[in-house]
C-alpha cells in the first residue's frame, strides 16, 4: 500500500503513525492494512476510573443532606476532569486506534454533558461498546443512559406533560436530520419515550405510571409504541442510514459531501446498520484515497495534541495545564459546547487559536514560555515573549529518548513525510529544505509548527 495512503488511513481512522510504523505498514497490501486496523480494535476496554469515593455518598445520605449533595457535586467536578486526562492518555497510548477514533466520533454525534462522573464513565463505555456495532442497538442504549436522560430532559418527559427535548434531538441530530420529520412526529415520539428515568447508580429506570400507553401515530404506523418501537420505525427510514452515512463521510472522508459515494455507503448500511461493515467499506473504497480527500481536513485540537504526543511521548505533570490548553484551543473533552457538539473544520480556527496551535509544538517540546492569567475560567492563557510575573512554562516531561529511537537512521525527509500529508506550499517547501537533513528535535518542532502540520 502506498505510504501516503497508509498515513491518510491512519490519520482518519486513528491518530497518525510513527515513522517506522508507517514504513512497516507500507509493505503490506491495502486489505491487510485495513484488516489489521479492525483486528486491533476488536476488544472494548472501558476507561478505568476509580469511583470508590462514591461510597462516602450513599443515596440514603444524600437524600436529606444538602451540604453533602453540594460536596459530591464539587467532588464530581474534579473527578470528571481526572476522567478527561484518563481519556487523553488512552488516546495517546492505545493500540486500538480505530475504536478510539470511532468513540470520539460518536461522542460528538450522541453529544452529552453531565455532572455525575460515574454516569459519564458509563456513557463513555456505551459509546465505545457500540462504536463499531449495530446502530439500532446503539441508539436504544443511548436513550437509556442516565447522562442522556438528564441532558435532554427525558426524566421530565411524563404522560400528560411531555418534554420534547430528547424526541426532537433524536430525530434531528441522532437519526434523521432536520427537515425529515414533522412537528407532529416529534410530539408522538415524545409520548412514546415517557416514563424514562434513571437509577442513582446510572442504570435505566422505567416508571410505568408516567408512561403514556395510548396509541401513537408515527411515520404511517399506529400502535401503543414505546421508545424502542419508535427507534425501530426510524430505522426503517432510508433517510436515517443516509443521515448517518453523510455524517461519517463528512468526518472521515471530506466535509464536501460526494453524493455518489454516500449513496454507495447507504446501500451498504441500510437494513443491517452494521457500523463495522460500513467503515470497512469506506476504508477499502478507492475513492477514500482520492487526492481531494488526503490532507484536506483541519485537525481538531485533540488530534493536534495527541498527534504530537504520539510522535514524541509527553507527560503533563500538572493536569491543570492540559485543561487550560484544551480550553484555549476550544475542545475540552467531556465538555462539548452544546447538544450539536463541536462543529470542526474551519470553526476550530480563530486568529488566537491558530497562533496558539502554531506555537504549541514549541511550548510542549521546547518548553517555550507562555503567559496566562488565571481568573477562574481557564480561558486566559496568552502568549507573550516579555518576561513578567505571570510567565510560565509547561511543566511537561518529554521522552526524547523514545523519539530518537523512533527516527534512528531516518532522514528529515522521511520524518516530513510522516508528519505532513497535504501538498506543501511551494515557498514553505523551500523553507523546509533549509532545515538540513537531520530529524533533530529542532527540526521536528519546526515541521510541527508549519500550517501544513495542522492538516490531516
Amino acid at each position, binding site marked *: 500500500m502506498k505510504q501516503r495512503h497508509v498515513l491518510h488511513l491512519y490519520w482518519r481512522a486513528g491518530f497518525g503513525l510513527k515513522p517506522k510504523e508507517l514504513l512497516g505498514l507500507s509493505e503490506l497490501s491495502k486489505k491487510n492494512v485495513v484488516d489489521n486496523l479492525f483486528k486491533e480494535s476488536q476488544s472494548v476496554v472501558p476507561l478505568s476510573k476509580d469511583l470508590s469515593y462514591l461510597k462516602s455518598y450513599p443515596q440514603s445520605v444524600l437524600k436529606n443532606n444538602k451540604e453533602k449533595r453540594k460536596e459530591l457535586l464539587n467532588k464530581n467536578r474534579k473527578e470528571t476532569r481526572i476522567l478527561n486526562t484518563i481519556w487523553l492518555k488512552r488516546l495517546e497510548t492505545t493500540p486500538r486506534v480505530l475504536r478510539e477514533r470511532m468513540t470520539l466520533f460518536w461522542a460528538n454525534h450522541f453529544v452529552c454533558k453531565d455532572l455525575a462522573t460515574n454516569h459519564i464513565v458509563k456513557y463513555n463505555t456505551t459509546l465505545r461498546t457500540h462504536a463499531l456495532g449495530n446502530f439500532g442497538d446503539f441508539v436504544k442504549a443511548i436513550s437509556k443512559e442516565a447522562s442522556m436522560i438528564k441532558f435532554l430532559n427525558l426524566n421530565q418527559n411524563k404522560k400528560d406533560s411531555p418534554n420534547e427535548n430528547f424526541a426532537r434531538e433524536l430525530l434531528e441530530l441522532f437519526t434523521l436530520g432536520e427537515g425529515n420529520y414533522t412537528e407532529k412526529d416529534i410530539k408522538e415520539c415524545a409520548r412514546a419515550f415517557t416514563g424514562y428515568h434513571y437509577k442513582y447508580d446510572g442504570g435505566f429506570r422505567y416508571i410505568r405510571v408516567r408512561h403514556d400507553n395510548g396509541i401513537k401515530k408515527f411515520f404511517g404506523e399506529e400502535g401503543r409504541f414505546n421508545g424502542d418501537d419508535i427507534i425501530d420505525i426510524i430505522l426503517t427510514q432510508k433517510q436515517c442510514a443516509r443521515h448517518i452515512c453523510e455524517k461519517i463521510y463528512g468526518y472521515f472522508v471530506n466535509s464536501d459531501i460526494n453524493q455518489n459515494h454516500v449513496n454507495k455507503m447507504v446501500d451498504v448500511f441500510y437494513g443491517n446498520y452494521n457500523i463495522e461493515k460500513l467503515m470497512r467499506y469506506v476504508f477499502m473504497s478507492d475513492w477514500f484515497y482520492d487526492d481531494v480527500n488526503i490532507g484536506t481536513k483541519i485537525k481538531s485540537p485533540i488530534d493536534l495534541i495527541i498527534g504530537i504526543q504520539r510522535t514524541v511521548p509527553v507527560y503533563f505533570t500538572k493536569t491543570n495545564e492540559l485543561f487550560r490548553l484544551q480550553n*484555549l484551543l476550544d475542545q475540552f473533552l467531556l465538555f462539548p459546547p*452544546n447538544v450539536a457538539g463541536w462543529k470542526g473544520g474551519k470553526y476550530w480556527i480563530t486568529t488566537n487559536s491558530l497562533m496558539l496551535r502554531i506555537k504549541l509544538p514549541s511550548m510542549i517540546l521546547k518548553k517555550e514560555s507562555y503567559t496566562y492569567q488565571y481568573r477562574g475560567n481557564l480561558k486566559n492563557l496568552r502568549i507573550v515573549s516579555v518576561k513578567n510575573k505571570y510567565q510560565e512554562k509547561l511543566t511537561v516531561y518529554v521522552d526524547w529518548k523514545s523519539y530518537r529511537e523512533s527516527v534512528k537512521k531516518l532522514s528529515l525527509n522521511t520524518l516530513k513525510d510522516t508528519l505532513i500529508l497535504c501538498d506543501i506550499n511551494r515557498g514553505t517547501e523551500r523553507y523546509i529544505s533549509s532545515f538540513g537533513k537531520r530529524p533533530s528535535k529542532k527540526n521536528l*518542532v519546526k515541521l510541527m509548527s508549519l500550517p501544513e502540520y495542522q492538516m490531516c
Partner: protein
Amino acid sequence: MKRRKFIKNSALATTMAFVPSFLKAFEGAFPNKFGHKNLVIIHLMGGNDGLNTIVPINNDIYYNARPKIAIKKSDTIKLNYEIGFHKSLAPLKRLYDDGYLSIINNVGYPNPSRSHFTSTDIWHTASDHENILETGWIGRYLDNYGRKPHNAIQIDDNLALALRGERLNGIATKQAKQLYRSLQESNFNSILSHYDNSHLTEHNLGYLYKTMIDAKSSARYLYEKTLDSKLSESYPKKSSLASQLKVVGQFINSGIDTSVYYTTLNGFDTHAFQNNKHENLLKVYAEAVDAFVKDLKRNNTFKDTLILTFSEFGRRVEQNYSDGTDHGAANNIFVIGENLKRAGFYNQLANLKDLDDNGDLKYEIDFREVYATILNNWLEVDDRRILNKVFSKLNFI
C-alpha cells in the same frame, strides 16, 4: 438547545466567501465606515439581578418575594417614588442625570432559556431559542461589511461566539503590544516570510495561511496605531472590566478602523449570599464605565461611542433558600451615549404581578430589536442582512 446553519439570505455570503483573489481585502458595500462610530459591548456574565440593580423601591411584591435580599429603600439612590438605583451605581446615576443613559426594561425573547450557555449563545447569535445560529451577530456584521479581523475586537484571549462569522472572525487581544510581540517570536514569522501566495488555494490550508496573514497585518496595524499612545492612568486599578475598557479607550482614542469592541465582567451568577457580591460587582461595573466615559470625553470621542450593557438573563423574582437568586428570564439593559434620543427610562419597570410560569419577568422588548436599532441607526448598516429577519426599531438612538 439547537444549532442550525444561518440561512444565507444573499448571494454575498457564498460568492464572497473565497473569491479567487481571496487574499485581497474585501471590498464591502459600505467602505470606510469603520472607526467612525464605535459600539462597545459589556456582557455581565452569569445573569445580572436586574431587580436589585434598578430597584422597585415601592413594590410590596418585590419586598415580599425577597425578605432577606431585597435592597432597602435607604440603600438606594432614589430617583423617584418608584425607582432607586443600587447604591453602588452612583457614577451611573450621574450619567443618567446628564442624559447619557437609557435603561430599557424587560428585554428578552420568547420561550427563554435558563441555561447560561444556551442563553448566552442566543444573545451572541441573535437567534430564536428554537433555532440557534452558528455565527455571531457581530460576526455576521463582519461577514457582510467587514474587511479585517480588527474591525471587531474582543479584549480577551478567546473570541466569543458573538464575534465569529462565516467569512471573517473578529480578533481577541488584551493589548496591541502583546499581540504583536507574540507574533515576533516562535516560528510564526519565518513561516510567513517564506510562503508563496501564488499557490494558496481557497481550501482549508489556504484558510490557515490567510488567517495567519490577517493576524499579522491586524497585529501590526494595531501595534503601530497605538505606538504613540499610552494606556490611561485614570482607570480603577485591579478591576478586570476597567482594565479591558482602558484598552478599548486606547484603541478608540487612537482612531483605528474598529467599530465594535467586546468586553466582559464575570461573576453575576449569584445563587447564594448574593448581596455583598452583587454590591461589589455593580461597583466595579459603574466605576469602570465612569472612568471610560471620562477618558473618551477628554479625547472628544464619547460622541462617537455607544455602550451597550447586557446580561444573558435576569434572575428569579423570588429569592431562594440560600439568600441568592436563581436563573430568570427578561432583564434590563443599559445603553450609554451622548446622542440618545430617549434618555432615562425607555419603558416601564417590570410588572411583578404578571410573571411567567416560572415566576420570572416576561419580556416586552425582543433583544434583537435593540440590535436592529443599533445596527441600523448607529452603525448605519442594513440590519436585515445581519439578523436575517425584520425587527422593528426602537427609538432610543
